[in-house]
């Protein structure tokens, strides 16, 4: 099968690769195929034809239109935000990337071995959305998303620790963190799962509800809108986004992320409806949030209530309601760990 020289050369090659993989783990680096430079090169080689100028022009134009369409809502959601120009640019990039990177359907439907990722959850990374200069959504009564998410994350942290689960927080105070810094903190913390806590800003203000996102192509303007809001200040370029999404949409952890999103959404709806029977279940959805792209573990972004809705905002002002939300999030995480999610849901974005 092999000549007398080949086996030794082959052995030297595989040992070199094994050593490199170990060195990457030691250094906390992404595996070589997932690193931006390598990814860029590989993707260019594989998909050079897709980057032909005419296609880019068409896609650029179509996404620019879409971004214009969602602009008013984004502006309304983050009123008072001092860095509006940067936000606009980032949001537009994210939308373009979503449209410009058509997926091979066979990648999305590729089955993941049931046991491949069932290897235990011992450390949870909690990301309190926004912070510092980035207020996030605000209520008419003056509540800011950044303060509430930090409060919620602190409550979730304590509940998880009580259950013997280690917790890593991306921020513990009113700090300004870029989305890239959050993802880097999560990866450096070597968490098993990543939960980003946010509060929604929906228009009109009468709209409210709970929704949980995991990474995927949205294909729906309203989800792009949410992603654009949350992706502001990301600093990622269109090329970065394209490469990241190409890789991650076919990633095995996407399945686990969906499962986590489902258990958390289910727990949130069940617990919050005990206090507010009419709160809408906006469902589990996919969208290209930067923090979900760049984190290396199964990751979700939970919009646990709508701060733009006066009724939700009033409830969020009470510690009891925030504690209920925290308990629901922990319950959802525990259900994920315990695999209490046999009922698979079908999502429009995946049908």
């Amino acid at each position, binding site marked *: *099968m*092999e000549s007398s020289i080949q*086996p030794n050369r*082959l*052995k*030297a*090659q*595989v*040992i*070199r*690769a*094994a*050593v490199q*993989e*170990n*060195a990457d*783990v*030691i250094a*906390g680096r992404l*595996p070589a*195929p997932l690193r931006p430079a390598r990814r860029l090169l590989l993707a260019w080689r594989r998909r050079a034809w897709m980057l032909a100028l005419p296609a880019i022009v068409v896609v650029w134009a179509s996404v620019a239109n879409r971004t214009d369409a969602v602009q008013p809502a984004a502006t309304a959601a983050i009123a008072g935000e001092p860095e509006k120009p940067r936000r606009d640019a980032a949001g537009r990039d994210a939308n373009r990337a979503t449209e410009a990177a058509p997926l091979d359907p066979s990648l999305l439907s590729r*089955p993941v*071995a*049931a*046991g*491949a*990722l*069932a*290897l*235990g959850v*011992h*450390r949870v990374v909690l990301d309190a959305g926004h912070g510092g200069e980035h207020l996030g959504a605000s209520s008419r009564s003056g509540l800011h998303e950044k303060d509430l998410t930090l409060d919620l994350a602190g409550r979730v942290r304590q509940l998880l620790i009580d259950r*013997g*689960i*280690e917790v890593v927080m991306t921020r513990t105070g009113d700090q300004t963190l870029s989305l890239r810094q959050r993802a880097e903190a999560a990866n450096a913390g*070597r*968490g*098993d799962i990543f939960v980003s806590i946010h509060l929604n800003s929906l228009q009109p203000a009468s709209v409210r509800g709970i929704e949980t996102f995991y990474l995927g192509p949205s294909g729906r303007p309203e989800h792009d809108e949410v992603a654009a809001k949350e992706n502001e200040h990301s600093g990622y370029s269109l090329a970065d986004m394209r490469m990241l999404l190409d890789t991650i949409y076919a990633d*095995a952890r996407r399945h686990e992320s969906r499962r986590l999103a489902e258990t958390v959404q289910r727990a949130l709806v069940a617990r919050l409806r005990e206090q507010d029977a009419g709160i809408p279940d906006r469902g589990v959805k996919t969208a290209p949030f930067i923090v979900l792209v760049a984190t*290396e*573990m199964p990751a979700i972004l939970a919009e646990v209530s709508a701060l733009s809705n006066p009724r939700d905002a009033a409830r969020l002002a009470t510690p009891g309601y925030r504690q209920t939300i925290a308990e629901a999030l922990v319950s959802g995480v525990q259900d994920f760990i315990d695999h209490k999610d046999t009922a698979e849901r079908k999502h429009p974005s995946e049908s």
Partner: protein
Amino acid sequence: MKAEEQSNGNGALCVGIDLGTSRSAISSSNGGQFAVDSFVGWPADLVARKVLKRDLLVGRDALENRTMLELHRPLERGLLKEGSDRDLQAARELLRHLLSLVGGKNGKNRPVRAVVGVPAATMRTNKQYLRNALSGVVDSLMIVSEPFAVAYGLNALLHTLVIDIGAGTTDFCVMKGRYPTDEDQRSLTLAGDSIDAHLQNAVQAKYPKAQFTVFMVREWKEQHSFVGEPPAPVVVTAPVDGVPTELDITAEMRSACESIVAPIVETMIDLLTQVEPEFQGQVRNHVILAGGGGLIRNLGPTLEKALDRLGGGKVTVTDSPMFVGSDGGLAIAQDAQDGDWERLKH
């Protein structure tokens, strides 16, 4: 044992370790080759310590004295259990014990270079945890997927499918003449332990008054496991109302062992069909069955029968399922260059 030690840079002791959920094996460059049960126990109280006259028991010793011990099995599904300091300590003691068996770290100030095999689908966080756990126990550490270590040890790096059935996981790896990527590997959590659980439940259901432990069940399995037609009736002895009684567990043994066959076949075929078409035939004819599960009677022919629908194939059971992984790890450790080991120092 090998007659003489192969030379290695700086007089280092090279070891390959198959850190198993149920049993761990070590092969060393000085010819040592040992397997121990992956159990570590500390005397439960002062009385136990006085009776045992030791502060720590490892392996079979720990199992046999388990009633007097705080017993720990530090691995689960082929990985170190996380979150418990005691389990972490148990893992380190297990490693120290393995190394002491081959003369490593016994006061001789000789660097130890270790290659440790882990399940194919181990995540990077788990690898980092293992690396941290073994800090100070070995000088340099390389973590590789267990089926890759098996393939390396058997010089089967090209057009080969390795199926390694351990206690915690069944690992698959297609060797394509390169270091395996995630796409080349799979892990199932259906393996020896799940057979034990299945068998325990089935025997308990058939003989509700019989008294037995999971350790007895494991021994029954190791002596009598089979799939397909029974080679002989499987009769074991266990107390019923305190009276040693013979129990026929033939059907239960078959059912338990066959519970892992369908998932293994499905995964094997799935991986085979993802091999480039022109090489699928070669890989089908070079399927290697390793690990303790390779000792299940008639499993190889059963997998071959499943390959018939793809055009046929050949499944080879390794000669030494217990040590094939650690021997492979040792081969990697000895072939790696000094510069490689420098990069992997703790």
